[in-house]
């Protein structure tokens, strides 16, 4: 019996996660009372489990409605800014990751052809930063860890600097742009700063949301 009750309570903890704390606590307490009364009224474990399982679709529908209600409480401006920042972070993080992978792929090509030695300091830095960006992207995927992910990604915009340095000797396009386009250096620095600021802004914006969700 106690195992079934623990399972039902675990299910309740699962579907009430990230809801308003008052609503979540009320639902769990009400269910705990129901389970106690049902067990005291000589309800069998099968009967209790059956009630829980039959109610799963309604539990999920209720959760969906409650989450929508919580979202509606967030002011429109904050939702728009949040959505915009979310998109910018997504684009910046995936672009950084793609750039890092591209740089590594070019380096591997040159190493395979025997044109460069495999572990130059710049190439290793690019590899480490790309892995760091990958970790940041994974952190961004979960609501609970996205603030940490955004904070983690802020310094990884250095990948642009090291990636371009690494590509300078391997890509004619990069070599030509950096030598012929006067604003190239400033533009790459500004891009790094802008990307870092986007990540920092997202981290600041998402930290309170993470607290609310608890």
């Amino acid at each position: 019996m106690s195992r079934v009750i623990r399972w039902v309570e675990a299910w309740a903890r699962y579907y009430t996660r990230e809801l308003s704390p008052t609503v979540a606590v009320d639902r769990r307490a009400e269910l705990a009372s129901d389970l106690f009364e049902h067990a005291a009224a000589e309800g069998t474990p099968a009967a209790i489990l059956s009630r829980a399982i039959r109610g799963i679709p309604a539990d999920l529908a209720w959760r969906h409605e409650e989450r929508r209600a919580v979202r509606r409480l967030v002011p429109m401006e904050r939702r728009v800014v949040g959505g915009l920042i979310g998109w910018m972070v997504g684009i910046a993080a995936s672009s950084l990751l793609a750039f890092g992978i591209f740089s590594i792929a070019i380096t591997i090509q040159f190493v395979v052809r025997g044109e460069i030695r495999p572990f130059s300091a710049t190439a290793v830095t690019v590899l480490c930063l790309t892995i760091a960006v990958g970790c940041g992207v994974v952190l961004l995927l979960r609501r609970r860890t996205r603030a940490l992910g955004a904070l983690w990604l802020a310094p990884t915009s250095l990948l642009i600097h090291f990636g371009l340095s690494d590509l300078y000797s391997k890509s004619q396009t990069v070599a030509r742009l950096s030598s012929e386009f006067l604003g190239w250096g400033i533009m790459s620095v500004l891009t790094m700063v802008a990307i870092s600021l986007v990540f920092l802004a997202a981290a600041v914006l998402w930290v309170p949301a993470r607290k609310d969700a608890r």
Partner: protein
Amino acid sequence: MPRRKAGAILPLEVSILEHGLQSETFYGFGLARAIADSDSGLTAHGTLYKALSRMTAAGLLAAEWEAPELAEAEGRPRRRLYRVTGEGQRTLATSQVPQRIAVSTSVSLA
């Protein structure tokens, strides 16, 4: 899933209001037992508490936690007590009008 018409209530909600009016207050498990269906047994947790939550939000029911001393004295968790509001009574009365018309029509046709 089609959206429900404003003011429309489900058969389960009618049952809740009908049973709720039989006593001053009621609580989840007691209600589940009172409206238990002989075929499928007690109403599922999710179905019952979702309905109670929706009805409370709609103002058909009022909810409050019972005093902790009472629950402690009886050695059980606190119950969330519901009572049918005036709005709940009006909604129930409105929902029963079409049924009464249908019954009286079928009687007069017979």
